[in-house]
């Protein structure tokens, strides 16, 4: 450990840090709070540029972004635009997968008014609650987050007092006090599922961090701002019984040089109460993955 004030030397890493000492000495005038002030200024600046959840934009804006970039990416965006009409960006704050999932799911319910789906997911959410309790989580640590998610779920169904419009859903998704709590709800769900099936997930987790599922959940799932990997997506999809399609926009292409956009469907594995029929359901959540970031995609 060390605090990052400048030349910090710790016995174990003496040889390394003492080299840094001379280099960092000039930096000693920069105090942590100055650096942090600057950091939060940068964050605030970013926040203005991209809210937690952005507006729906035509896919053309994505093409414009790569206008002078990689020809492979330009070509892939062309292929993408044959099937997809729009993109909704999310802030790159490490919560983008969960935030994208949150908005895409609630928006789907708002637009489809699919009450059967709401009843179905509630059964799985209740199962997740039991899972967390059986894993030894104190109920008071997660109950507020569960209640808040269920409240949002009710509110996107029309015909009750708390019903909200699409515009209000966008507002709520941008309101930190609601948005972050729903993200945290998904983090609890993901962590519970990973631990419940830790034997299954252990090899995947070890490939990522060389630790146990327990350690992985503590360091990479439960803290806000920790980015999501395949493992998180699989676990969330399994736990809630919601299929998710991810399209990959990267520079890869096959040997023949032909361009196609790879996608992967995360199909909920059997095991949770309502997952058995999930194989038959076409994913209604589609996300675009660019290395390090997820946004929401809208099919034509």
């Amino acid at each position, binding site marked *: 450990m060390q605090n990052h*004030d400048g030349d910090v030397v710790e016995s174990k890493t003496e040889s390394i840090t003492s080299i840094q000492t001379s280099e960092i000495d000039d930096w000693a005038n920069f105090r942590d709070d100055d650096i942090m002030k600057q950091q939060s200024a940068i964050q605030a600046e970013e926040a203005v540029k991209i809210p937690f959840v952005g507006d729906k934009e035509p896919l053309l804006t994505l093409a414009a972004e790569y206008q002078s970039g990689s020809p492979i990416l330009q070509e892939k965006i062309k292929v993408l635009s044959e099937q997809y009409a729009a993109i909704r960006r999310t802030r790159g704050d490490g919560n983008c997968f969960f935030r994208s999932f949150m908005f895409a799911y609630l928006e789907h319910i708002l637009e489809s008014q699919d009450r059967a789906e709401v009843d179905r997911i509630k059964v799985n959410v209740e199962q997740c609650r039991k899972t967390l309790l059986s894993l030894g989580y*104190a109920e008071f640590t997660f109950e507020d987050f569960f209640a808040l998610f269920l409240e949002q779920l009710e509110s996107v169904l029309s015909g009750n007092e708390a019903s909200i419009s699409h515009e209000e859903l966008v507002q709520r998704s941008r309101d930190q006090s609601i948005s972050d709590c729903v993200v945290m709800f998904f*983090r609890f769900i993901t962590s519970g599922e990973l631990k419940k099936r830790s034997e299954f997930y252990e090899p995947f987790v070890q490939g990522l961090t060389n630790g146990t599922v327990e350690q992985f959940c503590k360091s990479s799932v439960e803290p806000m701002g920790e980015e999501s990997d395949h493992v998180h997506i699989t676990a969330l999809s399994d736990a809630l019984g919601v299929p998710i399609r991810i399209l990959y926009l990267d520079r890869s292409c096959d040997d023949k040089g032909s361009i196609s956009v790879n996608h992967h469907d995360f199909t909920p594995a059997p095991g949770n109460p309502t997952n058995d029929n999930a194989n038959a359901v076409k994913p209604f959540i589609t996300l675009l993955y660019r290395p390090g970031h997820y946004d929401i995609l809208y099919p034509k």
Partner: protein
Amino acid sequence: MTSPSASSRKALSKIACNRLQKELVEWQVNPPAGFKHKVTDNLQRWIIEVNGAPGTLYAGETYQLQVDFPEHYPMEAPQVIFVPPAPLHPHIYSNGHICLDILYDSWSPAMTVSSICISILSMLSSSTVKQRPADNDRYVKNCKNGRSPKETRWWFHDDKV
């Protein structure tokens, strides 16, 4: 030690208040072994007594932790420091600041005051040497303006101690 930032801190949100009341009840029913919380009517600051575990370097010693809760607890981490005199430990500064990842970047609302206490006791118990961090003087000097440890950019590269 009183941190000046505590007085200017915003009052607890409703969510934070509810959560802390539940934690308080849970603590009273099931306090972590080795800890005593002197209950006051100040929900936003807990003073907790820590007893060094038997068979460790800190056996028989007693210290005080000061836990201050931010407006948006538990989404934000509490500020946890030792009230000086702080235990001599390679990760604890003489001003009471503690270098422990879960208090900063690795904090999660899934954690509780109780789980923090257990982590701190475990950190004390696994220590093999009673000494201050190598950069203690510099760090403490830089904190003279009353800066909170949450405003420090911590580097954690040793979780063995």
